[in-house]
């Protein structure tokens, strides 16, 4: 059953958990034996049979294995974080556009909280010549803090327990004053990505951010994840500056599971409630 090649199969392909790794008090990585062809920023639908199915990005990949890192937060992710070696999970995908990674110098990656997981394979691909800015609530929640020792990453925490006490956006502004970046990639809370976008707009730097919405099909048919006229699952989840300028729902509103359009803050607390229920 393991070592299967995933291509564009849209029915779940079943994998047994090969290894688990606790990354932080909140984050667990599930690793699987097999090769998955994907671009950084693309996602898969992770199915726990009998429970639910949710979108996740690949956080580790090699020629014969890949990993998914989950933040144990709610109903689904807490169950996922408790998975053990040998447990069976379904994977559909990969879906979405992924980051555009045309080779260039002076590149910055900004990651907030569990937004570090989706950009990890991007950092792997971009190599050592990038600036990494990462933030979390506290030191022990800085995901993959020791994964890129040669990157000389800049860190911040809400409580000041590691690095700068404050926000990634403050570090980004400082970094831009030293280095005129050619591209900024960002993944994290949507309000963080909006601020990153605003800073980049002011400085005329193109950026790419990865959005999140409640998803169903994953391939652009059902429309559950629309942000304005954009389907986050297939037109995104990565959107560039050009698109973001036209997306009036960016950092503003999102659809609930029922399809009701609500303020992003209402959506965020519903996602937590939905997860806890």
């Amino acid at each position, binding site marked *: *059953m393991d070592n299967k090649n995933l291509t564009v199969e*849209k*029915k*779940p392909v*079943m994998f047994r958990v090969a290894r688990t790794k606790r990354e932080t008090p909140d984050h667990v990585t599930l690793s699987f034996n097999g090769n998955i062809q994907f671009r950084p920023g693309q996602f898969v*639908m992770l*199915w726990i*049979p*009998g*429970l*639910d*199915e*949710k979108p996740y990005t690949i956080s580790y990949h090699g020629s014969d294995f890949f990993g998914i890192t989950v933040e144990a937060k709610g109903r689904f992710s807490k169950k996922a974080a408790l998975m053990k070696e040998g447990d*069976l999970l*379904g994977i*559909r995908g990969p879906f979405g556009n992924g980051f555009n990674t045309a080779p260039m110098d002076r590149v910055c990656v900004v990651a907030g909280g569990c937004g570090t997981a989706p950009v990890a394979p991007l950092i792997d691909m971009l190599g050592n010549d990038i600036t990494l800015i990462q933030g979390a609530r506290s030191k022990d929640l800085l995901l993959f803090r020791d994964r890129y020792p040669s990157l000389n990453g800049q860190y911040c925490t809400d409580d000041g327990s590691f690095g700068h006490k404050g926000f990634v956006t403050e570090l980004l502004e400082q970094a831009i004053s030293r280095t005129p970046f050619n591209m900024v990639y960002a993944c994290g809370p949507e309000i963080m990505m909006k601020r990153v976008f605003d800073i980049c707009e002011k400085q005329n730097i193109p950026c790419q951010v990865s959005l999140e919405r409640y*998803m*169903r*099909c*994953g*391939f*652009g*048919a*059902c*429309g*559950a994840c*629309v942000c*304005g*006229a954009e*389907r986050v699952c297939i037109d995104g989840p990565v959107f560039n500056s050009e698109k973001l300028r036209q997306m009036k*729902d960016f950092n503003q509103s999102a*659809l*609930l*599971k*029922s*399809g*009701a*359009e609500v303020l992003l803050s209402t959506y965020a607390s519903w996602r937590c409630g939905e997860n806890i229920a």
Partner: protein
Amino acid sequence: MHVNFLGKELISPTVLASGILGNNFDILQRVHESGCGLVTMKSIGPAPRDGHNNPTVIDLGHGMINAVGLPSPGYLHMEKEWAALDNRNFPIIASIYGASVDEFQRVADYVSDKKPDFIELNISCPNSEKHGMLFGTSATASFDVVNAVKKMINTTPLIAKLTPQALDIGEIAKACEDAGADAICAINTLGPGMLIDIESRTPILDFKKGGLSGPMIRPVAVRCVYDIFKATRRPIIGLGGITTGADAIEMIMAGATLVGMGSAVTYRGIEVFKQVTNEIDQWLDDHGCTLEEIRGAAH
């Protein structure tokens, strides 16, 4: 390619099927701008409803299976949506559902005031315990729903959306026509069917069962439209598995006036509406005939 449907001029004979991309004004407008003649909003229900947990939609390559489960904000909680649609420059179908004749009436009455161009009565969804298909498989129940709604609203043309699960779909269509339906839309998804994952020994869809759509069901859809054309004089929106101009021509020859597409978006993208319209146009050109000439030509 302009087409007249119940007195409305449409830019194309293509229709966006209910349940696909109908979630907000912006995406409906995008589909219209991609060449779709008539777009259908996601089915509107009497109360807020989340629908089912995932997996809800699985693509099998030759078609799809889904049990999304009629999610809806509920007709009373869509004011922003209605306000945006008020300034639209394209025609829409508001699809509605209910679990009783009374619920259908209540939703239709309210929605009609919002001035959609057409109201579609979804009496055919297989993905809910008590909505939809229960009505659409009975001529009497279908008559009762359409009749009750028609009595209440006489300004907005009514479309009855039918299920291929009916023993005699022509009889159902005739009952809807007799009850005052202005048009018939067929078919809703086929089934329900089921997928079981053999490793976990678990049905894949969270609702376990789901409706089939896409190319694999097209022959059933063509037969249904053929039967409906024989049984009624009402115009038909024919849909079920259409992804090309040739598929659309086939459906029109069975008797359809317009052709709906849903799963086709998965296989050819949102641009499928313009593509299929052009392919129909090309075929008509090559054969030197018009849509009117080929409608029902297989009879």
